[in-house]
């Protein structure tokens, strides 16, 4: 099928588009994986402040090789740095920031997102899996704007944007925008609206690869 040749955007482009949508001065929490790339594509002249739920506001980039501090890590347990103006705090204070609506944007990966913004990103519900939720449920419940970055389909070609999530939910009605390799899709009260299509992606192609009804803006 011709569809197999459609790649759409690469992950860097997806991250760059998400980065360009975050206003100057925002407080941002980035999930593990593709979301982490967002920090590399913030447009010049903008300053974002990164929060990591294990107790650091003002997270900086990865340290140079040999400069790693084993007690300075992010929520993904990777070595990070702290910017001048950073602060450390304990976990209850860190989640007060999250739950209290103080973080402006959280960019997450997901297994599935539904037509009404439900997100499943913590468990595939497999029988033998070790359930592990971390801070995901607090983040989707507390952060003002939840954006998802993910491949549009699974490796086996199944749509990840669905009518109703089949995987265990992380939160209900929380996702506001989805960045995939095929499109940027806004989750609105009236349904899923296509905000932008990747080069070579048609609306029909997108709809065929999406498990929920899409609308054009």
């Amino acid at each position: 099928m011709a569809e197999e040749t459609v790649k759409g955007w690469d992950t860097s482009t997806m991250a760059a588009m998400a980065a360009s949508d975050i206003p100057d001065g925002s407080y941002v929490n980035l999930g593990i994986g593709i979301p982490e790339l967002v920090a590399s594509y913030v447009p010049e002249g903008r300053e974002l402040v990164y929060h990591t739920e294990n107790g650091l506001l003002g997270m900086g980039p990865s340290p140079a090789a040999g400069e790693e501090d084993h007690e300075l890590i992010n929520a993904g347990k990777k070595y990070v740095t702290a910017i001048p103006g950073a602060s450390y705090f304990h976990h209850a204070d860190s989640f007060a920031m999250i739950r209290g609506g103080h973080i402006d944007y959280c960019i997450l990966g997901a297994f599935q997102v539904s037509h009404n913004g439900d997100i499943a990103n913590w468990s595939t519900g497999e029988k033998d899996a070790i359930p592990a939720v971390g801070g995901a449920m607090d983040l989707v419940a507390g952060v003002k704007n939840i954006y998802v970055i993910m491949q549009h389909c699974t490796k086996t070609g199944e749509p990840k944007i669905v009518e109703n999530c089949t995987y265990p939910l992380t939160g209900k009605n929380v996702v506001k925008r989805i960045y995939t390799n095929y499109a940027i899709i806004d989750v609105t009260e009236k349904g899923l609206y296509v905000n932008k299509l990747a080069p070579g992606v048609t609306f029909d192609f997108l709809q065929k690869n999406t498990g929920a009804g899409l609308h054009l803006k």
Partner: protein
Amino acid sequence: MINKIISSVEVAVRDIPSGATILVSGFGEAGSPVELLHALVDLGPTDLTIISNNTGSGQAGLAALIANHQVRKVICSFPKTSNSVVFPELYRSGKIELELVPQGTLAERIRCGGAGIPAFYTPASVGTPLEEGKETRIFEGRTYVLEYAIRADYALVKCRKADRYGNLVYNKTARNFGPVMCTAASTTIVQASEIVEAGNLDPESIVTPGIFVNRVVEVRNPLDESILIAENRSYPWQKKQ
């Protein structure tokens, strides 16, 4: 570049409208944002709800705001201090409303307001008049009262040092309600005795991370409420009596 520094107290408070709900830091005569409060007296909004531990002392600061009839209601734990004269008079004449809250409950309600927790249970006030009308519930054989979060439109807070991100450190017992109040307002306005370069404050010692602060204004050598009282000063300033 993020820069929350505002040029003056006047500019810092100028959008506060009549009818606003405002958290005001301070305990006794320590930690009250006197200059911000005076700017609010100058601005003149009325019908305010003030949430603060006390109701001001003497005739300046919070007491001046109340004396100027800008405050409709006070939510506090201790509306009289040895130097409070303004509130008692208005209260006795029915011109100001009071919601009395135990001090720890007040602090926790504000913290919860900032932490996204709508309600919590506390043992304080059980079996007392302040429990009346409130929902109670027994956990492990002990009775607790359900208390609701407090959030406000603005917080006016005093601190010692701040930077452009809004990171704050406080001074001794003038810290009191400041840190929790910063978290629980839509707009948090802070007066700092000194504004320092970002990176100057030790990241291990910052008490209020900048995420909780919207505006910072430097007020060097801030007025000292204790001295204002001792000197019997009234705001708007009059000749010393």
